[in-house]
């Protein structure tokens, strides 16, 4: 039976994992992901899942064990944050390169140094080129729904790629929200059975995986992998749509919120979307044509959708919780800019880096970003491209 209960973002992720009942979970604890592993270990102890939980000795081994189990034909899920994702970095590329449909829940936390356990998106944004599908969630309900969808996306025959589901640490992971939880059987039916394309346990038909691949073939292999990632977008959309038809909730690749006639817009991902919506609503009441463009699917990057949504906008700001030191702009900003260039759309685009290391991003600060955009829209001139929100001493 469906029911609505109070769950944190981590709790919602763990509940989705319980209902998916994967074959193997290999994970290592790190704040703010810890609650997911702990909760899941409880499910294992009480016998409410059939999963083999591998309590590995590091995140590097977590992703390594996930590769082994996935290659052996087992549905496999893991979760981590920050330093854990960084320690997995080498393995992220291998999981994608081996075309293993692993699902990873990443609770976004900043990266050391200085050490800090709080939220920003440096960890997963820093892994953007690993070849994974990356989905960013706004709140705990979306986390729950997206984890379930991720299994289907990853295992789709035309995709066969790992999927990372990202949620902001503490802001989402530790906040209790009313979550509509599906019936166990509904989730079971939705995710279906994992039918691996290749399988190490098929000893009658032995295959070699992970072979050394020299310049003769390497490029083609990597291109095929990149192509699969690009082509996964319709599958992500299809799974989300089917989920919506069955359960009444869907999110899209992007969400254009009050964008139809918007003159100024904030483009962002994760929990900042929710705050930006509230501010945009306020501004709309005052007659200001403000909108929000939520990027839910960050890899593959929705080039067409983003360019289309921003067409006609006079000024837009990309807000993200990560730096890209020494780069012409941070990651998401650069991607949005690239999408506009691809499609020949001109928008006065600026960047706002916000909320590093857990600094709060309140509505009043987002309002200032919109004010900045109003000035640019009015003058038609961009005064400064790279901006830092609520950074002390920065003018």
């Amino acid at each position: 039976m469906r029911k609505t209960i109070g769950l944190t973002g981590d709790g919602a992720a763990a509940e989705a994992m319980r209902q998916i009942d994967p074959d193997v979970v290999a994970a290592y604890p790190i704040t703010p992901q810890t609650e997911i592993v702990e909760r899941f270990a409880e499910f294992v102890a009480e016998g409410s899942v059939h999963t083999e939980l591998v309590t590995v000795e590091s995140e590097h081994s977590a992703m390594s064990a996930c590769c082994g189990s996935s290659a052996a034909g087992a549905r496999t899920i893991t979760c981590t944050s920050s330093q854990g994702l960084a320690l997995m970095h080498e393995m992220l590329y291998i999981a994608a390169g081996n075309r293993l449909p692993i699902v990873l829940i990443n609770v976004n936390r900043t990266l050391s140094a200085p050490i800090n356990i709080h939220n920003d998106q440096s960890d997963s944004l820093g892994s953007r080129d690993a070849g994974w599908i990356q989905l960013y969630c706004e709140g705990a309900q979306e986390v729950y729904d997206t984890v379930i969808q991720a299994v289907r996306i990853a295992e789709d025959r035309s995709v066969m790629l790992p999927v990372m589901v990202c949620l902001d640490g503490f802001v989402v992971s530790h906040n209790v929200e009313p979550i509509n939880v599906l019936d166990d059987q509904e989730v079971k039916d939705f995710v279906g059975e994992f039918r691996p394309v290749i399988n190490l346990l098929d000893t009658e038909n032995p295959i070699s995986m992970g072979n050394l691949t020299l310049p003769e073939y390497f490029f083609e292999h990597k291109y095929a992998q990149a192509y699969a990632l690009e082509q996964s977008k319709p599958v992500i959309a299809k799974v989300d749509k089917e989920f919506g038809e069955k359960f009444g909730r869907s999110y899209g690749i992007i969400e254009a919120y009050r964008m139809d006639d918007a003159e100024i817009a904030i483009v962002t991902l994760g929990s900042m979307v929710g705050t930006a919506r509230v501010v945009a609503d306020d501004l709309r009441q005052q007659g200001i044509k403000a909108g929000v463009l939520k990027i839910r699917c960050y890899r593959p990057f929705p080039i067409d959708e983003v360019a289309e949504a921003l067409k006609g906008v006079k000024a837009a700001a990309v807000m993200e919780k990560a730096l890209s030191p020494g780069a012409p702009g941070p990651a998401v900003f650069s991607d949005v800019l690239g999408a506009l260039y691809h499609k020949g759309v001109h928008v006065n685009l600026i960047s706002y880096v916000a909320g590093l290391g857990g600094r709060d991003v309140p509505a009043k600060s987002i309002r200032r970003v919109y004010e900045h955009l109003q000035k640019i829209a009015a003058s038609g001139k961009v005064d400064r491209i790279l901006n830092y929100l609520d950074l002390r001493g920065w003018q």
Partner: protein
Amino acid sequence: MASLKELSQREILFTGGHRLCAGCPAPIVVKQVLLAAPHAPIVVNPTCCLEISSAVFPYTAWKVPYYHNAFENAAAVASGIDAAITALRRRGKLDENKKFSVIAIGGDGGTYDIGFQALSGMLERGHRVLYVCYDNGAYMNTGIQRSGATPYGAWTTTSHVGDAQKGKQQHRKDLAWIAAAHGAYVANASLHNWRDLMRKVEKALNYDGPSFINVQAPCPRGWRFPEDKTVEIARLGTECCFYPLYEVEDRGRKWVINYVPRNKIPVTEYLKPQGRFAHFFQKGNEYLIEEFQAEVDRRWEHLQRLAKMSEDL
């Protein structure tokens, strides 16, 4: 263990046509291990000479499921495969009678050094995995650099012989001992004694728990000896007790020496044919031989004491 006649009728699961050096120890070890495996083998192979030479796309020398993933994680990858088997069996997705032999085969670098943590984790968690280290005592794949398994005084490309330093400054890490401390089934073996090695492999894979077998694997290229001497050098290594053959059972408590040389030969007989120890025999460097011999004796005596203590068990 199967008789020689029975073994001769089994299929060799590692084919020729690979790109390993002539006289390479790795395929000798692999063939023995796969021949001895009692169930359907699944091999995990970390980055090393064996990997880069045996599975070059679109070819493979492996007639069994084979997975290379990375350098430092074979034990963790194998742990995942073991977990998958357990989980799929629990769900009734595997044929009840089907049994697997999950085997990780790695070099000493991927085992003693960079893969040490993953190995420890795998042994501690108790996976039904046999980890075989073909111990050629250096990072051969990357051009003969020292590892934790390189013997004292040996020349490598990161432990050179010069006026200020004569080869590797430290003695080898004794990894089998550390593995034994995990309570796993542990054995030291050598490729020249196929009967001993294969018996151990079979035992390990019939054991309902983790196991580790370290195999002496003389490398003609890195040790600097002619490629028709691989087996002979291994024999000398065991005859001088540098590489004794033993096994540890009963969760690390019972130490059994499987081969006691009738005449323990001096280490010089083992060192002399190997170019990596050439400087041991130069005037003024006699102390290297003495130190090498002393350490071999210390370890051999200690092993004998442990074996003696274990006799009552």
